[in-house]
């Protein structure tokens, strides 16, 4: 399942925690990590946030590693790239290929960038893995982000999952008919898939509009916020 992050956000120990707190804490920590740009602090924040995510929110460590793995892979590649092709100054290591060298400067860049992302990722993970999108949008609405943007975002969020199901069905149908057999046929299949989805989405938007209108939609979707359980 592609969207297990959404599932996790709804099912963990911190789902019901005040979303404002989580949002502000995340933004504060992100800005702080970027502003300090200190290697030790990056490691510190990584450990603290990982502990919060794994021990307090009780999120499965496998899901958490999956969350980290893809950005981390990209990060390693880009930092190697930074290390090899950037910077001037003292040469500390010669690779011997095309005169590519690692200099003190480029090493500095690579290490600092790596550690910065290393520190920031768990902060993003904290928000993304513990807070459902609808709650974040609700916070943003109360923080005077333009209404229209929140409404569109909420409608969008509701539609995404319907689309994903349809795409899944269609892709399986195409696959069973060898739709992705060769390079060119996969282009054709993908084109057919996307245009069908687009045409369907137009119909869907009409239906959605009728449904909203018939329930007295005036440009606002009131969301039910359950009161906290008292115990």
């Amino acid at each position, binding site marked *: 399942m592609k*969207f297990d*992050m959404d599932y996790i956000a709804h099912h963990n120990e911190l789902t019901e925690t005040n979303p404002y707190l989580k949002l502000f804490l*995340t933004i504060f920590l*992100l800005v702080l990590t*970027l502003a300090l*740009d200190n290697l030790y602090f990056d490691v510190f924040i990584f450990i603290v946030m990982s502990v919060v995510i794994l021990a307090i929110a009780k999120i499965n460590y496998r899901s958490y590693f999956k969350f980290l793995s893809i*950005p981390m892979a*990209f*990060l390693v590649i*880009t930092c190697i*790239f*930074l290390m090899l092709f*950037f910077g*001037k100054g003292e040469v500390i290591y010669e690779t011997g290929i095309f005169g590519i060298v690692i200099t003190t*400067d480029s090493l500095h860049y690579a290490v600092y960038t790596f550690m*910065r*992302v*290393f*520190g*920031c*990722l768990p902060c*993003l*993970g904290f*928000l*993304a893995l513990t807070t459902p*999108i609808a709650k974040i949008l609700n916070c943003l609405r109360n923080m005077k982000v333009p209404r*229209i*943007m929140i*409404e*569109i*975002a909420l*409608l*969008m*969020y509701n*539609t*995404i999952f319907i*689309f*994903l199901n349809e*795409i899944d069905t269609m892709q399986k149908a195409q696959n069973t008919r060898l739709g992705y057999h060769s390079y060119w046929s*996969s*282009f*054709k299949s*993908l*084109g*057919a*898939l*996307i*245009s*069908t*989805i*687009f*045409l369907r*989405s*137009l119909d869907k*938007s*009409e239906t*959605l*509009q009728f449904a*909203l209108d018939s329930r007295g939609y005036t*440009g606002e979707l009131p969301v039910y916020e359950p009161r906290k359980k008292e115990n």
Partner: protein
Amino acid sequence: MHIMEGYLPLNWCIIWFVISIIVVAFGLYQIKKIVDETPESKALLAVSGAFMFVLSSLKLPSVTGSCSHPCGNGLGAALFGPAVTAVLATIVLIFQALLLAHGGLTTLGANIFSMGIVGPLVAWIVYKGLTKAGISSTIAIFFAAFLGDLLTYVATSFQLALAFPAPNFGAALTAFLTIFAVTQVPLAIGEGILTVIIWDRLKAYKPKLLDKLGALAPNEA
């Protein structure tokens, strides 16, 4: 590829945020005008945004073996214009950061600038320019999607080169552009072809809608 969380230093995060917020605010103003005139377009906008998001979860077949997803900003810009696309792209980027760990919150401004502003704007200018010049909309949409995709990565290279100007800005830009040219030109061509296939079917099935959005070439309308 989005710039990932924490990749840019703080000062550049702030600069890109400020620039992007101005453009997105203008886009919101435009959307407000559209919605005030025709209230039923809100659902259309939302569904189109969801469509853009869903596109990014599909894999684009690519020659070089690296895989990427279509960004759909060429199509969006040709249909709705760049300002509206910028707003939709903003929401899409927030969702991508929070649902897919793709991109990030601190680099949101920079990503909006490259994916939501530069790409669609270029695509829109190319599309309008070519259709005005009497070229059929199918060919125009290819170049719009191709250049929109490519220029997105040129903008990303600029942003990265500005953030990491070593040994100097020019050399850094060349290095980033080389990497992106190698990996992205085939992908951009792929996106172009894909957009043409989509466009052809749209023209066959919903010509009235395209006409209503003002997206067809003058001689085809």
